């Protein structure tokens, strides 16, 4: 092997929602997610205090956040079509640090959109996410965005239905890619 792997952040797992994942693999993926979140959030003193949250409201906000990151378009569905937000929330249940990061991120989104991100129009939601994306890594909101963006993208693009329109539209085996060397 000539070069080292380029994946140098703690590998954000993909909280798998459907497909062939076996229970053991799902547990492994969950451990990876929790490890990534814990490592990434460990040096954020702001997460020491848990904000009061309405669980149902937070679930709505997080689902719409995921769909803002990956909305439907003419070729492929939104993140919610694969149940990605629910799966991520299920995976981090019981991990206090991850739960606090999720709560902090959703609270920030709601506060930025007049109290309810999930009811804001698309322009306002995209603007909020752009602000959040620009937040520093040392802020809970910035950390939430980076971690969840990675996690959502990994979960979404592991679904074959997301590959429509990409040059790579099947797993590498069993057919291989003879066309790449022609």
């Amino acid at each position: 092997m000539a070069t080292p792997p380029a994946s140098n952040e703690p590998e954000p797992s993909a909280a798998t929602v459907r497909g062939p994942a076996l229970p053991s693999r799902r547990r492994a993926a969950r451990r990876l997610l929790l490890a990534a979140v814990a490592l990434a959030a460990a040096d954020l003193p702001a997460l020491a205090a848990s904000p009061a949250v309405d669980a149902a409201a937070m679930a709505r906000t997080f689902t719409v956040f995921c769909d803002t990151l990956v909305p439907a378009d003419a070729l492929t569905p939104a993140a919610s079509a694969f149940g990605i937000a629910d799966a991520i929330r299920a995976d981090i249940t019981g991990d206090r640090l991850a739960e606090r990061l999720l709560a902090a991120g959703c609270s920030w989104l709601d506060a930025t959109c007049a109290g309810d991100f999930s009811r804001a129009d698309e322009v306002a939601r995209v603007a909020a996410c752009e602000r959040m994306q620009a937040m520093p890594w040392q802020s809970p909101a910035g950390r939430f965005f980076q971690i969840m963006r990675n996690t959502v993208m990994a979960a979404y693009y592991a679904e074959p239905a997301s590959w429509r329109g990409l040059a790579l539209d099947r797993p590498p085996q069993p057919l291989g890619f003879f066309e790449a060397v022609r």
Partner: protein
Amino acid sequence: MAPADHDAVVVGAGAGGAATAWRMTQRGWRVLLLDAGPAFDPDADYGLERSDWEKERFRHKPGSLGEISVAPLQRLDPGLMRELRSWSLGQGPSNREATRAVSGPGYHHVRGIGGSTLHFVGEAHRMNPASMAMKSRFGVAADWPVSYAELEPYYLEVERFLGVAGPLEARDRWRSAPYPLPAHPLSRASRKLGQGASALGFAWDANPRCALSRPYDGRPSCNYCGGCTHGCPRRDKGSADVTFIAKAQASGRCEVRANTTLVRIVRGTGKHTGVIDAIDVVDGTGRRQRIATPRLVLACGAVETPRLLLLERGLAAASGQVGRNFMESVAFTSVGRVDEPLLSFGGLPADAITWQHNRPDAVAGVIGGYRMSAAIHEADMTGAIAHAQRAVPGFGREHKRQMRRAVGSTLAIGAVGESLPHERSKVDLDPRRKDAFGRSLARIHSFVDAATVSRLRAMAASTRGLLAAAGVQTLVEEFGTYDHFSSAHVFGTCRMGADPRTAVVDADLAVHGFEGFHICDASVFPSSGGGEAPSLTIQALALRAVDRMTA
């Protein structure tokens, strides 16, 4: 002590141990080949046919990653970060700390039957003869006590055994016969990179690869899936499990035991302290067993082999060299994007290479060379997830549109360079962290010195320059070993040399001061070479070592 059931015990079933065991069976010896890690099944374990194939690069099993410790790493020079930092468009800087960071496991390896050949790309490189005399020519590292000419017949034998596909041009590495198989066709992406190399005046060769370009020895040819680092389900990649170990077992003279950990090396007593009487092992069920053996070969790599020696007080310690001279991957990779559909996720990984800077004096003012090769697969920038996370920034509908342009249109050049010994780079025992048997873990001390920084700067300039010459206008990611410890190739910690005061093993890989005790892995390398992949040299050295063992 009960008589031995085997003529030799080989500990470690990677590139070196597998070749050693096979050669011993050719001599008619009965061999026991042990590994602390599991066996893998190419038909079931690699996942390249799964829709979630990209989520894990190599799907490790329990026990297939050895526990190691990494000592605190040095502070980074902010003045160098603009030039040498690791970053991506999608994720920003990958090390936000003030010190070097450990990337993933740091030491990227597989413990198991086949060892790291299970996840290696399979480059089959011979050493550049010019890189084998670093001490006498440049006053660094140590000279090889075995010449290229002595190794050449063994190189050829391993190449023929594995079915290496390579180019007609030999360049610095003279050959007594051509490669057994023709070179693979270059991918579209590598042909594009070749345009850049040509514009710069660099020869752009097919990279010698132990993946089959034609059916060979009962194995099929490659179908260019690009997944070598995930493990090869077709068995066309010449990993040690489907080649050396399969043939050794077919001889009927090799017993292979997975999940079996060496926990003690038992020396002779009285007048026989220069021999190894036996080893103690613990199998996967926790059962401890003493195994008598007239010959012991350690082949556990340049991190674990010195650990095993250091754990046995005084064993091979006369030189004081065990664990010193640690050399690691010195690497820099640049990834960019073109507006051209290249299907760059496919093709054979590292199918093309330039040796332009490989000689140790190739770069003015820098001791130690490097090579550059097509690296999109090793950069792990092939699938949609990697592109979505790292290559395409942002989110939303525009992110989706850019994804459709980016996947298959990214190119990467990876440079791998000489690593030279430094007194601060070594492997010792961690005084605090222990394994399941209460034995200290190996602790890696990695240090980037000024000379390495100079080499990395030259490498980074070259990777960017070649991408630019190939038409890349946008870089999307860079990754290097200035701000990360990230090593797939490790060397030097049981140095080979004629003088027992400065080396651990002799030119025949026999441990100085012992009879019937050998080391057959890259820990014996006196110098690393200018970026050559080490497995072919490990295997050539192993065959030669067995041939020179007394019957």
